[in-house]
């Protein structure tokens, strides 16, 4: 198998397109996607459901063929080099895919054996994660809580010390505390030199990645570091608060200086039209200018993409 020499990039995707036919209609799942993931970095793929994230993951894990383009993982072509790729990747699908009727330990043992390794051999890598579920090692995987299932699935995906780790929506359906723990674990893995590609529908998780790509309807809208994404955003954002937030939202959408208003936690965020010079907020509305967050940028990008 020819190995492509690309020193820095662990994942290279260039002009990949993939469409499905469902019935008579052709659905474009991925439309001319290109990006690179640096070795040893944590790359986030952010996008709503149906954006094409899972399709992209399946292509990169050599599970799906595609129509056009080229994709390399760890230097191997995902189509011709699928056997090599399958030896060096760890994959955690979006859906819990371990054996529910096997215990925690049996699952881990089984996955260790199919990668021709043992739990002991790579225990140091998974120790931090597995130690938390080890007290339940004789419990059936199907009986674990959502957060524990994710930890077990991650342990199984890591048991052979992969060089690239693919995590498809690992935090979906997991409580806030477990989510935070999960991201801390990913940081630890990154320090071990593992390249991680992670997808999530939660925009607040974007800040935790080295680099993020915003994907919608099969296209990438923006790729950059979270810092650059917020700092290159040129629009002005105000956060507003009133007594009746629902009424304020409807009212604010009528303001001619506001391009867009959307709820954001306990405030609403208003994107100000670029030409507007004077802003007249009504009485009783508490308004203050803020630095745009990554969510503000994404909401703006997605809105423009839709139009």
């Amino acid at each position, binding site marked *: 198998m020819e190995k492509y020499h690309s020193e820095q990039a662990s994942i290279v995707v260039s002009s990949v397109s993939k469409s499905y036919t469902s019935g008579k209609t052709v659905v474009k799942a991925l439309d001319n996607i290109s990006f690179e993931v640096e070795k040893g970095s944590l790359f986030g793929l952010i996008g709503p459901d149906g954006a094409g994230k899972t399709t992209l993951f399946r292509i990169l894990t050599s*599970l799906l063929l595609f129509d056009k383009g080229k994709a390399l993982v760890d230097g191997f072509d995902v189509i011709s080099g699928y056997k090599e790729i*399958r030896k060096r990747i760890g994959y955690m699908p979006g859906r819990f895919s371990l*054996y529910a009727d*096997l215990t925690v330990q049996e699952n881990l043992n*089984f996955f260790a054996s*199919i990668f*021709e390794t043992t739990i002991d051999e790579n225990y140091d890598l998974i120790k931090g994660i597995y130690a938390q579920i080890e007290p339940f090692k004789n419990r059936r995987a199907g009986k674990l809580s959502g957060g524990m299932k994710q930890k077990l699935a991650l342990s199984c995906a890591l048991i052979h010390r992969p060089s690239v780790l693919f995590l498809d929506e690992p935090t979906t359906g997991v409580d806030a505390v477990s989510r935070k723990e999960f991201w801390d674990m990913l940081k630890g893995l990154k320090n071990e030199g593992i390249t991680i590609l992670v997808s999530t529908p939660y925009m607040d998780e974007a800040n935790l990645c080295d680099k993020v790509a915003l994907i919608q309807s099969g296209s990438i809208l923006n790729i950059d570091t979270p810092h650059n994404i917020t700092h290159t955003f040129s629009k002005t954002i105000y956060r507003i608060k009133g007594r009746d937030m629902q009424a304020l939202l409807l009212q604010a959408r009528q303001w001619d200086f506001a391009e867009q208003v959307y709820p954001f936690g306990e405030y609403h965020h208003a994107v100000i039209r670029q030409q507007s010079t004077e802003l007249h907020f009504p009485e009783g509305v508490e308004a203050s200018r803020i630095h745009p967050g990554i969510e503000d940028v994404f909401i703006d990008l997605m809105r423009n993409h839709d139009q």
Partner: protein
Amino acid sequence: MKQFYHFILKEFYHIFRDRKTLLILLGMPMAQIIIFGFALSNEVKNAHITIVNQSNGAASVQLVQKIESSKYFELYNQSTQTADIEKMFKRGAIKVALVIPSDFDKTILAQNNARLQIIADATDPNVATTLTAYLSIIVADFQKEINQPNTIPYTIDLETRMMYNPQLKGAYNFVPGVMAMVLLLVCTMMTSLTVVREKELGNMEILLASPVNPLIIILAKAVPYLLLSIINIITILLLSYFVLDVPINGSLTLLFAVSILFILVSLSLGLLISSVTDSQKSAMFISLIVMFLPTVMFSGFIFPIENMPLPLRTISNIIPAKWYFIIVKSVMIKGLGFNLIWKEVLILTGMMLFFFAMAIKKFKIRLS
């Protein structure tokens, strides 16, 4: 090898933790043998008969007694009115009626020529034919008895011998049939379901993204069902030998060897089905409709293949169970050796290799 061992271990965990399915798998052969052995049978016994005896002479009474004492018939109601017969047929109370006309006793003595009428409910033609045949035999027997003092100038005595199954037991035929059916159900349906279940639940997605050889995935699925099926063969043979008195006339080793061959054919077929389907529903549908029904119809176990028109007889050749059924009957009942069944064994071996090669070839190394 270690991979393979862990895979098989995992399959056993799945099987032993699904207690209900395991119970069905191991209980099914027992239930079938018992149902076919005691409840379902095409032997006709204790059929309700009515005899309209309008003669009531010595000879006719003797005939009635003879029919009554037969294990095939049970006298339902005596009547002298032929009109009652139709009513009883309509009610479904009787299967057959015998009318002894009023001149029976007179004519049989005076003119050496008497007449009887048999009326049968032919809604089930097989039962009607069987019952009329039984009645004719009883009447012929009776005729012989009353003729005893006189010698009829030319008589031909037919001496019939029922080879291999002198008592004409249905069990001799259905035990091989049940063996074919159970093995096919367990091996084909269960293996196809277990592979497809992994596709449905997403387990296959991880397995495919790992370096495991598809051959290992496939073989590991087959091994536990091979062992389960061997247990099933043992149960069936024990039950049929000790409970139904079906003999094992041939070599037990040969019987086991060909059964394992048939199991391998069924397993390969199950794996092939699982390679080409993506949902448990379609795997179940294919196993049941496309495999199970033809097996019941074309294996010769319920419907004799010899009576079928040529196109159906040709189709029956591609049904593995037909060949297995022939082999089991030959070895178990007729006591034949390998030299007389090598052709069927060769056909099954060919089928196994073909199905297995197809299963490997069709196994998808990617999703969809």
